């Protein structure tokens, strides 16, 4: 009996240790070359078992802005474009990854669109020319978007992993850059040239005129 208990305990310890090796938590802060945090940077671990979720992702239009400004989705995902404003929007993309246009009327549900190919989709509105949004389609099952402080947490297999990073201020919007990350907390400095940071546009209901 004692033998069984000992074996079971050893098995438990082994499983726990193995789990710790399999899924390590890494905390990243993405910054520019000067160390200033980059909010809304997309980070992902290429590969993995990419399985898009059944329910569509949502790129809302609220207060004459895209919400969120940057949306990351795995390949094969569907994205809905609801219009939460009382005015019409005319959303479009000329990005090679996904070209489309949809007129979204007041209270329109917005039909979900399929995004089968990895890459960056830049969104605009033909009526409100200050509206700008991005859908970043990634070939990965682990991905996230940095918060207002440029921080994000990911689970990685093993001690280190190859990480891809993208940001809307990249001069070459279709380029991504690769970094190797290790478990624990670390700072990722992007190497690419960035466009100047622009303060938020302060548009309201009377600015469409």
């Amino acid at each position, binding site marked *: 009996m004692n033998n069984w208990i000992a074996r079971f305990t050893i098995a438990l310890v082994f499983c726990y240790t193995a789990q710790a090796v399999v899924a390590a938590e890494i905390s990243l802060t993405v910054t520019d070359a000067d160390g200033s945090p980059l909010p809304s940077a997309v980070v992902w671990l290429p590969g993995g078992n990419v399985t898009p979720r059944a329910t569509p992702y949502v790129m809302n239009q609220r207060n004459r802005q895209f919400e969120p400004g940057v949306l990351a989705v795995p390949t094969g995902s569907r994205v809905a474009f609801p219009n939460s404003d009382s005015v019409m929007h005319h959303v479009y993309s000329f990005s090679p990854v996904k070209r489309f*246009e949809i007129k979204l009327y007041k209270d329109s549900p917005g039909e979900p669109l399929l995004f089968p190919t990895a890459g960056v989709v830049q969104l*605009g509105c033909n009526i409100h020319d*200050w509206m700008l949004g991005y859908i970043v389609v990634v070939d990965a099952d682990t991905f996230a978007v940095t918060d207002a402080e440029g921080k994000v947490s990911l689970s990685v297999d093993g001690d280190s992993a190859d990480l891809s990073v993208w940001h809307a201020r990249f001069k070459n919007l279709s380029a991504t850059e690769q970094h190797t990350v290790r478990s624990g907390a670390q700072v990722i400095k992007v190497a690419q040239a960035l466009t100047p940071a622009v*303060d938020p*546009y302060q548009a*309201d209901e009377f600015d469409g*005129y």
Partner: protein
Amino acid sequence: MATKLTYRWRWLDSCVCLNSRRSIGFFLLLLACLQVQASSLQVKGQLELRGTLSDTPEPWLYSGSGLHRYSDQHEGLSVGSSVLQAQYDFLSAWSLHGVAHINDDVDTKLGITEAYLKYKPLSANGYQWQVKTGGFYPALSLENPDIAWLSPYLYSNSAINSWVGEELRVFGGEVAFSRPGRRFHSPHSFTAVGAIFKANDPAGSLLAWRGFAMHDRQTVYNESIAFADNPAFDDPRLSRQANEVLPFSEVDGRFGYYIGGHWDYLKRSQLRVYYYDNNGDPRALNYKTGQYAWDTKFFSAAWLLKLSQRTRVIAQFMDGSTAMGPSLGVNNDYQASYVLLSHTLGKHRFSARYDRFEVQDKDHWSFDPNNSNGDSFAVAWRWNLSRHWQVGTEVMVTDSYVENRELWWEQANQQQTQWQLNARYRF
């Protein structure tokens, strides 16, 4: 008298001016029909009930020399600014726009204030352009961004935009080319605008024979605005002038133009600069309608600054001239400006505005004095009770000197006070 020719734009005659109660019936019927609407048809509008309390003199609309829309003889309940705005989208880049107003001053009528076709293609390179053709306002005002060219701030427009609403409308084509800043990672956005147009030849008449006024009454197409019984019109030199103005009519057969520039900084600061010239031939007269072509031009600069998300300042300045008659017997310069402050607090909006305006008589016709000037102060409060309902009030005090009041043995100087209480349902 060189060019005499002419004709009025009759294209909307059959549909735009429906008088009396029929117009309200038509308006409601139209609304009912539009409840069954295709998704590509967007309809917005409002019905307003307005109570007013005012004083002398009588408004110009009732042959008086007052500068407010209402008076002690014409106050009480009215439909205020009741409007309907429709937009029909088709294909990718095309849309049809129409705006109708009900005015119940003098007589009740439903009329069209704007009707145009817009082409705005998608752009892959970030630059945007659009073309408008039909009848519309030049977008020179930052005071009137609400539906149907209404103001979300005060109920009565500034002196500048009261005049724009009653005498300025073009029938032609406009091209606008934009560089939206955000597409180019810049806080600055720029738009260049150019237009050529017909009609709008008599614009300036009201400034000469009434001066600037303070109101929210927008003239509808093919509408005539009456002048007071001006004794100057009895003089042989003005005897061919009708006692009314058809501001959007064509008289001289010539094209007018305007150019404009918009500069936005993060939408927090917005500047619009326009130069307008209707290129009117002052010698041209339509004998049938009694309308001269006026050579009317002006420069306008409007600026909006958001001090915060809740507080904004809007200012506008206009400087122009107008002249009519073979010998430029009526020849005036005019200037007007205002500063408007608006602040929102929850569902409440508080606004205040100070206006100054002046018309200077430069001609040698002493029997027809056109000098006028004045200033006006107005405050308003609007309360959004729900998505559909809003109530609000405004009080406005205007001091004015209008020289030709003396032709009626009135005091040239007048002070007017006007109170408004409004309830509106928006859909």
